[in-house]
């Protein structure tokens, strides 16, 4: 089935190099999925499930509500028969894929001035009339970065999972899903056209659904998975419409072919704006932006490595990738760009406020992810595609680290509870405290990530976040965005507003992250006497990946050092990522920048200083205001009051959606459509009504059949009269 297209491959300098093997990069995880899936299914068929009564009991062991999803990892102790196969195949395919990706990367680097994308066409997927969609992969600088992030971080998380999930009875199933996810994610980033990207886009959503609901016996988990998928589908609706608009107007869905027509796009026209906005609707679903962010916090019901891989590092950043990939569209639609900026900035701020008052360690990180994704969208919306991708990359490092660190903490908490047979919430920070004594490595690594996300130099997050905010600031003057209007507001005002929101969000980020660290690792230990004895560092198979991620989170900024830094300090090359991505996004960026330019070095320095000051003050505020010593375990805690309570309940957005959208839909469907129209009107009135009418006419007719000759005679005579009368009228003059 694999037919390499000689025409496109032959002309590209990458043909024949390791990059020519790029089809194998996604296929390896697919192979892993098949093997692990088969292991999961055959073992189930051969040995049957564990006694369902016992299993059911395990699932219901602790009924203290949501938030202890990871409970089952440690509860069930039946190790899987073929677990060894899975342990090798699961992470193994990822390692191989990463090595292949690295080889491809080296091959790409070896080619000087590589400008054309390397497209491999395998077979025709949907050839219908003038629509032609191929299964084809496109390797360019942007997808190379994404492939490296996906396989690299994915590999680390797979390795971590070997330790984290080893006791779970669904171990092969878990790896099957995870492998499948990586496959779809790679299809997403490698796909050479929108429909193929959409396969990956929905495929990762599917895997996300399966993995969020991995411990499906808990209704909350299954609910969360379903919610994620459905909310994502709302976004996918937008994605589909955008594709339809593209095809209806430009006749193709291929990236290269569309990009070639980019010059024909009417700049700022309604069509291109609509396309961009519909794509962005897709992004709000997949990347959890307002108004569709609600699924992501619930998605924490999945195993923690899943949260790290899918709901922090890779899948949720697909929207950012999509906009960067469609830069030629968004660059032509400044109103859409401003919309992206506004939504991104609002999300960044809004999610950060919720993050302030969450107690579940994973929920804090979830809202932090939503917030950070907002930053990325601010970046790509402002045409700073490089900055957006850069933040995507660094965020993948530090957020994966944070999640995996939290995973280690939860894992350890859980084991402790398991040993003492206590059923308590292993994810609530009020039950933790002072863990730094027991988990030194994790503690240090988590602090690195915290400083990175807060934007403290020289950690990676500082560089990427600063680049986003700095570029945004510079767009306020002279860029096409600044000249456009958004809902009547001048673009400049919108940009400054978004900048202010971004700074505010940065302050909040520093506060809630420090809060998380303080409550988890500092202050007195609140786990309880017995449990404390069982607290210890997680095994090396789990901390190993953490260390790698820690290093990346610390030095990730090196990939795209700003000029102002390299001029002062000889740290490394300037704007490595920017140069690398230039062939893909350079034109788009240039179009957005328009007549504007970079801000002056002095202003830039000032901006950096302000940003750092804000980050530092955020940490300082958190350290001074928050008193971990006063915290009591969850069981004894009193509920929050006032605005804290609103924050703790996430502004009641879920409840509002439920009352405004979900319930009315069900009610209308059930009472109006089904019982009203279907059973009542159509079946009741029309179908059974016509049957009733037939019976009525029959009944009336039957009443004449009295058997009384007299009646018959009357009817007959009246009939004769009528017929004669009619004859009389029609025939006789």
């Amino acid at each position, binding site marked *: 089935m694999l037919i390499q297209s000689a025409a496109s491959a032959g002309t590209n300098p990458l043909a024949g190099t390791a990059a020519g093997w790029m089809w194998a990069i996604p296929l390896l995880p697919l192979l892993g999925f098949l093997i692990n899936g088969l292991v999961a299914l055959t073992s189930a068929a051969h040995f049957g499930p564990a006694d369902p009564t016992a299993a059911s009991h395990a699932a219901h062991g602790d009924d203290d509500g949501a938030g202890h999803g990871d409970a089952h990892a440690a509860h069930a102790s039946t190790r899987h028969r073929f677990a060894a196969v899975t342990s090798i195949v699961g992470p193994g395919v990822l390692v191989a894929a990463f090595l292949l990706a690295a080889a491809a990367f080296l091959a790409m680097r070896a080619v000087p001035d590589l400008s054309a994308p390397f497209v491999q066409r395998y077979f025709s997927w949907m050839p219908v009339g003038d629509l032609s969609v191929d299964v084809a992969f496109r390797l360019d600088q942007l997808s190379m970065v994404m492939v490296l992030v996906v396989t690299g971080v994915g590999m680390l998380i797979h390795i971590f999972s070997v330790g984290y999930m080893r006791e779970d009875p669904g171990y092969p199933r878990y790896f099957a899903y995870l492998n499948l996810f990586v496959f779809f994610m790679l299809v997403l980033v490698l796909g050479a056209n929108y429909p193929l990207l959409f396969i990956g886009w929905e495929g990762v959503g599917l895997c996300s659904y399966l993995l969020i609901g991995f411990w499906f016996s808990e209704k909350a988990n299954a609910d969360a998975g379903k919610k994620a998928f459905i909310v994502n589908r709302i976004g996918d609706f937008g994605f589909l419409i955008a594709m339809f608009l593209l095809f209806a107007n430009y006749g193709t869905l291929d990236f290269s072919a569309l990009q070639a027509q980019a010059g024909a796009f009417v700049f700022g026209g309604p069509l291109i704006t609509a396309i961009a906005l519909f794509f962005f609707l897709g992004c709000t679903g997949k990347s959890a932006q307002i108004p569709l962010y609600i699924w992501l916090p619930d998605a924490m019901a999945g195993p923690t490595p899943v949260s790290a891989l899918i709901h922090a590092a890779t899948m949720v950043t697909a929207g950012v990738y999509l906009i960067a990939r469609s830069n030629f569209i968004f660059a032509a639609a400044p109103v859409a760009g401003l919309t992206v900026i506004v939504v991104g900035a609002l999300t960044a701020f809004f999610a950060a406020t919720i993050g302030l008052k969450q107690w579940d360690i994973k929920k804090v990180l979830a809202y932090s992810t939503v917030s950070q994704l907002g930053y990325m969208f601010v970046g790509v919306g402002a045409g700073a595609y490089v900055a957006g991708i850069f933040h995507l990359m660094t965020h993948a490092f530090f957020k994966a680290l944070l999640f995996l660190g939290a995973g280690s903490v939860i894992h350890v908490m859980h084991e402790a509870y398991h040993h003492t047979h206590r059923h308590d919430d292993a994810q609530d920070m009020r039950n933790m405290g002072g863990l730094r004594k027991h988990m030194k490595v994790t503690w240090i690594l988590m602090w690195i990530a915290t400083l990175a996300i807060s934007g403290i130099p020289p950690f990676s997050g500082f560089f990427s976040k600063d680049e986003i905010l700095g570029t945004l600031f510079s767009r306020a003057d002279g860029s096409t965005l600044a000249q456009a209007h958004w809902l009547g507001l001048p673009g400049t005002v919108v940009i400054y507003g978004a900048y202010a929101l971004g700074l505010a969000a940065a302050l909040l980020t520093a506060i809630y992250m420090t809060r998380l660290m303080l409550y988890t690792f500092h202050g007195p230990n609140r786990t309880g006497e017995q449990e404390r004895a069982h607290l210890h560092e997680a095994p090396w198979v789990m901390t190993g990946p953490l260390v790698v991620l820690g290093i990346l989170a610390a030095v990730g900024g090196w990939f795209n050092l700003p000029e102002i830094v390299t001029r002062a300090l000889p740290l490394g090359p300037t704007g490595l990522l920017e140069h690398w991505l230039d062939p893909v996004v350079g034109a788009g960026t240039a179009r957005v920048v328009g007549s504007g330019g970079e801000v002056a070095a002095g202003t830039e320095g000032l901006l950096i200083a302000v940003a750092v000051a804000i980050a530092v003050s955020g940490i300082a505020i958190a350290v001074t205001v928050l008193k971990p010593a006063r915290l009591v375990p969850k069981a004894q805690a009193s509920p929050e009051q006032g605005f804290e309570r609103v924050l703790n309940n996430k502004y009641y957005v879920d409840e509002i959606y439920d009352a405004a959208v979900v319930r009315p839909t069900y009610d209308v469907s059930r009472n109006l459509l089904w019982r009203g129209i279907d059973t009542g009107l159509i079946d009741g009135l029309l179908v059974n009504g016509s049957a009733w009418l037939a019976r009525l006419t029959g009944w009336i007719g039957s009443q004449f059949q009295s058997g009384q000759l007299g009646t018959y005679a009357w009817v007959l005579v*009246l009939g*004769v*009269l009528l017929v*004669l009368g009619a004859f*009389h009228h029609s025939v006789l*003059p």
Partner: protein
Amino acid sequence: MPDVPSLFYTFHFYLFGLVAMASAVVFVTRRSPVSAAMWLVVVMFSLAALYVMLDAQFIGVIQVLVYAGAIMVVFLFVIMLLNLGHPAELADARGLWWKLAAGAVGLGLVAELFTLVRGATAAPYTLPAGYAAQQVAAEGAIAPVAGPLFHEYLLAFEVTSVVLLAAIVGAVVLGKRRADAR
């Protein structure tokens, strides 16, 4: 027969017609079946007279023989057989409204029939006036009927015999007391 009927002829024609109608009215208003039957016999006789006056002497004779003679006798025979005429049987007529409605229907029917017959005579097919009388004079009363009956309508005539046979068989079967009727 002359073209313009004589006064004698006309007088008797109207007389028998009026007698027929009057007897018919009396017939339907009699309560007793026997007297009703007797009045019907009067109608039949009047009609027989009309037939004769209309140059259908043979039919007139048959009318007297078959209808007034045979059929009405059978009726009377059945009435006697069933011994009808008890007061309960005589409480036969229906209510006033019923009668009025029936009368209205009857009048309507007369009106409609009347307007219909006024519009109906297809001139091209009419025979010359007095042709029937001449035919009778030439061939006798029976030949003009027998000719068509045994030529054009032979099949119908033969089928009639089947009808009669069936009627006889049916009457016998129906009239027979069944063994289980008791």
